[in-house]
């Protein structure tokens, strides 16, 4: 049976070459950024799948590919068994599109400043013809506003009258307007203060429970990801290096990059654990390193890692793309987190 969302061999390259004439005159080659370079992900209905990684790893590009803002260079995205890249008639496409929506990072840039909140939220309802008449439209928008804990009276205001957190609520209401089943959230809380971030995360979890939503959640904040995800994929230079259920990934991380990322989470429990700063930075995706792209920063790298690109192989209940894990060279350690005692063990 096909998964709810199935992404196979997804690639997206961007041409960032200089203009043709400059290239010819200065004898420069074409330059291609391999923003997403072979990503396979499946997302089950009702779960929250998170993609984490540092800036430039391609996680936002994946989000944009999934909702169709970019066409893929190669690979397929299937949503509920329908291949999204296939051309179909207008009504069929729009019926599919209605079922997936996106929430963007910057609530200041993603709302039209000249539209009233009512019209912003009503737009998807109008576009998909989901309201019977004006009264029905008004009722739907008011319900949506209440769902995100705003008041129906807020519909008459303009976006600039709201704070960042309230604007993100408006974005969520707009995304929910077409009654989607799948929401792609690209860093929805990273522009917000922590206390507001908590409000938005709580709201997203409540909505998921109430409306049986499926989330693809993009973030660079591992604590947030741990908090809300069912499964997590770690991206590095356009590839998913490890994916696993959240508990497995945080308790028994396997890929050296995942371990490095986990080591960088600030320690709020004051256990005295020192972050181990890892040397080096993410290389440019224009000229990614050969073999395993992480090898220049990896403490376990050997000659094989420099030449052969590792495949994602099953490991425990997830997949890992690492030669060291495959060969059993790298021991897997159990990690514990200090808040465990407050939490009954999960199976």
């Amino acid at each position, binding site marked *: 049976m096909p998964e709810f969302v199935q992404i196979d061999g997804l690639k997206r390259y961007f041409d960032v070459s200089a203009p043709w004439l400059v290239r010819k005159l200065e004898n420069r080659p074409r330059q291609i950024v391999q923003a997403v370079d072979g990503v396979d992900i499946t997302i089950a209905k009702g779960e929250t799948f998170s993609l984490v990684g540092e800036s430039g790893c391609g996680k936002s590009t994946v989000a944009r590919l999934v909702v169709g803002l970019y066409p893929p260079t190669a690979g397929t995205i299937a949503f509920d068994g329908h291949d999204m890249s296939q051309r179909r008639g207008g009504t069929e496409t729009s019926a599919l599109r209605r079922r997936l929506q996106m929430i963007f990072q910057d609530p200041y840039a993603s709302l039209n400043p000249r539209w009233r909140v009512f019209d912003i939220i009503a737009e998807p309802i109008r576009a998909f013809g989901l309201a019977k008449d004006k009264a029905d439209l008004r009722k739907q928008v008011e319900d949506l506003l*209440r769902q995100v804990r705003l008041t129906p009276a807020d519909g008459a205001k303009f976006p600039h009258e709201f704070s960042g957190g309230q604007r993100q609520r408006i974005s969520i209401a707009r995304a929910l307007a077409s009654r989607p089943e799948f929401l792609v959230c690209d860093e929805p809380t990273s522009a917000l203060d*922590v206390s507001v971030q908590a409000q938005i995360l709580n709201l997203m979890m409540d909505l998921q429970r109430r409306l049986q939503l499926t989330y693809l959640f993009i973030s660079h904040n591992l*604590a947030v990801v741990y908090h809300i995800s069912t499964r997590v994929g770690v991206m590095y230079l356009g590839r998913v290096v490890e994916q696993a259920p959240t508990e497995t990934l945080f308790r028994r991380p396997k890929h050296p990059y995942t371990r490095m990322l986990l080591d960088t989470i600030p320690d709020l429990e004051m256990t005295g654990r020192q*972050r181990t*700063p890892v040397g080096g930075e993410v290389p440019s995706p224009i000229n990614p390193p050969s073999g395993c792209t992480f090898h220049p920063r990896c403490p376990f790298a050997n000659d094989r890692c420099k030449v052969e690109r590792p495949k994602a192989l099953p490991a425990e209940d997830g997949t890992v793309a690492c030669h060291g894990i495959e060969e059993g060279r790298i021991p897997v350690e159990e990690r514990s987190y200090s808040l465990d005692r*407050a939490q009954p063990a999960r199976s």
Partner: protein
Amino acid sequence: MATNNPPLLEVKNLRVEFPTRRGTLLAVDNVSFEISPGEVLGVVGESGAGKSLTGNAIIGLLEPPGRIAAGEIRLEGRRIDNLPYEEMRKVRGARIGAIFQDPLTSLNPLYSVGRQLVETIQTHKPLSTAQARARALELLKEVGIPGAEHRIDHYPHQFSGGMRQRVVIALALCAGPRLIVADEPTTALDVSIQAQIIALLKRLCREHQTAVMLVTHDMGVIAETADRVAVMYAGRIAEIGPVRDVIKHAQHPYTKGLMGSIPHLGERGERLTQIEGSMPRLTEIPKGCAFNPRCTFRGERCLVDRPELMAAGASRAACWLHDARGVGVPVVREPASA
């Protein structure tokens, strides 16, 4: 930490105002704190809490029309808030170093980093260009730039974000300052680079006995770096104390809420504690305690009287809960606007 030494920096009843057409905005209100030599004071708060303005007031870089309306800032016992511009310029750089959030905008894109370092060193120290260059090279090595001999002649755009921030730190250290004001030094960086920069900052201030005022919104950075922390809310200090006490035994309801709203590892899928509402705009700061509309513990007294910092556990908090008379009759918060 070195709490018995005389303070290096003393801020007393600082008040920063912004005169606007619609009246004067009070952005920093009656803020007092001290920093000892070699100490790291973290200043946290959400956007608009006045934490960056406090930092800017200390380095004398308040943007007009913002101005210091009252209070004193003393560095090594000498008053620096009323110095003429040229005098302040000498203090800034020589005695106080500054690190800002975005390393690209704090460097001049037209000059190589070496030239910028040499210029700064020569401004503050009587060294020949060759000597200054040798010192610049030393600094670049000290902040961990690989291949410094060769990188010194590169331009800012040739460095990555993390490396640029290292150059900015080297610039701040040029004249051997006693105090560094670091305003969100790691916010623009990726997590793995963030850890590197924090480790670097900590090592440098330990080695040079430099005091640091670390302004950030990231409690994680504070927890790892700071000795003491001041939590700011709506232009005032809500709580100040040793970092361990503030994080583990927060005394002010705002600090408690703030700590609860940070997602932790180890508690998954639970609701986060949330503080309803958001910080008031500077134009509409409520009467009494500025936090009272969002506070679950508020009483009658909180609506009228503004609390000052008072002893609370090992810290000091501006909350009537810690006063002998308490908050008075509890006032139930009207449900949030929905």
